């Protein structure tokens, strides 16, 4: 229960960051926060305070945490890391070219240059 509420709060902080900020770094941080919220939600949802699924042959399965979301969240962590790395690499290139960290200013400069 606690983990779920915390995960929702983290996810919504990420949502709010993406909606309000027009800074590229802030947007990347918001996406990372949303990924963290999703991971925390999947890991805590039905099985807080349950036994870890290690060496559990022959035990009652209702007392053991679900191993499937845990295995899938490893994938999610790597994907979040990879997207953040690529986004930051593109950001540095964009910053060198347009000398601004904001989406709207960079777009405006791009339109001015292309005219």
């Amino acid at each position: 229960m606690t983990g779920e509420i915390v995960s929702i709060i983290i996810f919504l902080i990420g949502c709010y960051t993406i909606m309000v900020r027009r800074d590229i770094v802030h947007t990347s941080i918001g996406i990372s926060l949303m990924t963290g919220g999703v991971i925390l939600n999947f890991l805590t949802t039905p099985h807080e305070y349950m036994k870890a699924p290690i060496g559990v042959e022959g035990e009652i399965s209702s007392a053991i945490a679900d191993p499937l979301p845990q295995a899938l969240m490893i994938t999610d962590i790597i994907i979040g890391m990879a997207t953040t790395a690529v986004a930051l690499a593109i950001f540095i290139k964009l910053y060198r070219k347009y000398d601004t960290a904001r989406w709207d200013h960079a777009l405006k400069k791009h339109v001015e240059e292309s005219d």
Partner: protein
Amino acid sequence: MKYILKHRRELLGILTVLMGMMCIWLILDKPSTVPPNDTVNYYLENAQKETGAINVVTAIYLNYRVFDTVFEALLLLVAVTAVLFIYPIKPAKKIEKKNQIVLEPLKDLLVFIIPFILIFGLALIINGDKTPGGGFQGGAILVVIFVSGYLIDETRKVDLNIFTLVEKFAFISLTVIITAFLGLNFVEISPEVKKIYLVVINAFIGIKVCAGLGIIFYRFSRVDKEEDDQ
């Protein structure tokens, strides 16, 4: 319309808070018991004797859902390729001392701590099928060695071509071993071979993640200095 644009942040904040309250209300309303799930029961009952892994999570991501793992490793390779496409590898050279990041006492601590990080990462990788660990976690911990090495002496020259070679080799070996293992009849393989398979695959995943994250870290660490050289 003007009012909405002017108070955009406040209105979006109110919307977010309302969304959060609704989600929390839905959570409080949901039943506390989880209905029995056939997939999970199957995994919990049969994973240990079918795959030889004591940790059921390892059994899932290296046996039942091994394609997830292969394509996840491919995704990391694609991300590294994208970073290297944007910032191509420059020939390795020694850069002269500039700004020192770490204070002197902290350097001694880092030198002292590196062997322990190495042992911790290797233990996580080798015991991936018995404990809560595995290739991804162990590889991510092993990268800390490279980061500490950079903090101790940032002028040391690093050849990133070796890193890319290691990563490619690890990914190809990973694919070949998994394909060969899936091609054989899954049930007839002896438990000892299955355990060796788990350790070997975890080791290759660890090497791959370590090399990939190392490339990303070193590439980002040199971007600033190369700009100064130009």
